[in-house]
């Protein structure tokens, strides 16, 4: 795992360095003297070759010094990320919980009632969700609910000026802002969870041990809920582990459309403005989470499936 981490850090750093010198653009500004740019460059260490920069950066990462942002007024990276994560988490977790809680039972029910109207209807819904380009869908929703009907706000996280209002007012207000983005965020996942749950359940029902359970004279409810469901949920739970990274890294496009100051937007902005410290931390965070997410998925698998525990 460690080599993996190093490898990822290396690749990410090098790709990012392709973007080039963050101070290049400053040179174009006639009001900034070239010597000042040179001074800045030296202060930030950008006059050194890439590999040296990498080691210096890597060392400071490990020792906990995550640096300050080049462009956001020298604010520490941790502070910037802290703010962004707060918003991203809120939306991502809501979307994850909603899509999981709604989609999985529907998927399982579909599997148990294959070829009925319910099954066909929700299969269509699932495909709808999976085929819909999220950013376009976001727009359509904004257009209908925000512009035409005026029911819901079209961006941001709360009404300006509401910070002084009592807790409940603020809470409800923020909830209003969450509805559209969360809907857009959860659409695709709902579709794929539904299909996944359905196919997992379908496969389990055909298994021999379900036949054995019936042959024992167990009531159908026990056969489905005790024997089949438990096995069908195994792959789904591990998928849950794999969805963890996305929760933190945020959905770049949705955040951009709805003007949510979250991790996704932060990462992209940082990358494009060559704000190295911020960008690198964001990227490394995401990579680490991906790796951890894999680990968690494996662990969950072992917890849920006794066959894996011993090997």
């Amino acid at each position, binding site marked *: 795992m460690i080599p993996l981490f190093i490898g990822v850090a290396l690749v990410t750093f090098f790709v990012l360095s392709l973007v080039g010198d963050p101070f290049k653009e400053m040179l174009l500004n006639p009001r900034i003297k070239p010597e000042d740019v040179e001074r800045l460059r030296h202060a930030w260490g950008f006059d050194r070759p890439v590999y040296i920069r990498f080691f210096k950066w890597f060392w400071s990462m490990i020792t906990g010094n995550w640096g300050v942002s080049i462009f956001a007024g020298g604010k520490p990276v941790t502070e910037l990320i802290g703010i962004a994560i707060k918003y991203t988490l809120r939306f991502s977790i809501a979307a994850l919980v909603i899509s999981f809680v709604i989609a999985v039972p529907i998927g399982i029910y579909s599997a148990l009632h294959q070829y009925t109207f319910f099954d066909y209807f929700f299969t269509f819904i699932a495909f709808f969700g999976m085929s819909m380009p999220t950013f376009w869908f976001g727009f359509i929703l904004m257009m209908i609910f925000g512009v035409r009907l005026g029911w819901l706000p079209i961006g941001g996280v709360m009404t300006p000026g509401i910070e002084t209002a009592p807790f409940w007012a603020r809470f409800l207000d923020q909830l209003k802002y969450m509805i559209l983005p969360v809907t857009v965020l959860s659409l695709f996942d709902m579709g794929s969870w539904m299909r996944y749950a359905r196919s997992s359940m379908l496969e389990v029902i055909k298994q021999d041990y379900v036949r*054995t359970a019936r*042959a024992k004279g167990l009531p159908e409810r026990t056969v489905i809920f005790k*024997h089949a469901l*438990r096995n069908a949920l195994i792959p789904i739970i591990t998928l849950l582990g794999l969805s963890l990274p996305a929760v933190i890294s945020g959905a770049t496009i949705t955040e951009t459309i709805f003007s949510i100051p979250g991790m996704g937007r932060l990462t992209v902005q940082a990358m494009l403005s060559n704000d190295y410290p911020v960008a690198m931390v964001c990227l490394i965070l995401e990579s680490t989470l991906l790796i951890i997410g894999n680990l968690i998925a494996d662990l969950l698998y072992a917890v849920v499936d006794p*066959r894996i525990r011993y090997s």
Partner: protein
Amino acid sequence: MERGEVLLDVRDLKTYFFTDDGVVKAVDGMSFTIHKGEVLGLVGESGCGKSVASMSIMQLVDVPGKIVGGEIIFKGEDLVKKTPEQMRKIRGAEIGMIFQEPMTSLNPVYTIGDQIMEAILVHQDVSEEEAKKKTIELLRLVGIPEPERRFNQYPHELSGGMRQRVMIAMAMSCNPDLLISDEATTALDVTIQAQILELMKDLQRKTGMAILFITHDLALVAEMANSVAVAYTGKIVEYGDVYSIFKRPRHPYTYGLLSSVPSLKTEKTKTPLPAIEGMVPNPYRMPSGCHFNPRCPFATERCRKEMPELAEIEPGHLVRCFHPVAVEKEANA
């Protein structure tokens, strides 16, 4: 051999599968009887309908299959007419069943103790304590060493033979009158196979239960069964007690099957092993008349046009053929 009263009477059972490509008549008019304490061997090649017959008895036939005709009289009542709830009470309690693949027939996420116990708890009004005691007793009965420890183990921790013993324990947990064994030993090593068969015979002697022993292996039938029913393309083509069938097989198919089993004698004479010509017909394209006629060396015009009925050729020995074979076979068992 003294036969007890009739336990299971299958009359003209018809189970058809309605697929997109046509109707498959998996079981097409099967009839056989099992008496109390008797072991009936149901023999036939793959695809002859024996498994479907056993699933039909348990009323576990899945779409697109459906029982379309016939009666299954168990202890005087027709199972076909039972409601799902009534049938559920019978399954596991009065009729037990064990399957071919011990690897996949047990649920991998629950302990074997749990799985046996649930069969007991669902049919009998006992406490969990008692059920657990009974389970451990059962495990001991089927020959699993250290039953208390095994109780908490998962199926993947046991070998194939042991898993099959667990299946037997599970099937017998409520003292059923009939045990259906659907190719239960086919997937096991020969030595383990012998052990399991011994176990089954032993249990049968102790409890007096009847066994419907389904297999394609004639040698096993000779060892286990009191009576034999030979199945071909969904019908029974020959039926009788084990000695008659093996000594005086009347149907050309049975005769062919028995001839194709190598014996010590065959080696000495160095004649090639006779095999039945041709293959089992495509279920979507059954030959007309007697289904066996394309492969039968004695087929006549009549055979190609008419389907023979199951008729008694000697007391207790029925054959479905217009020209039964009349040769004594040497006892091979």
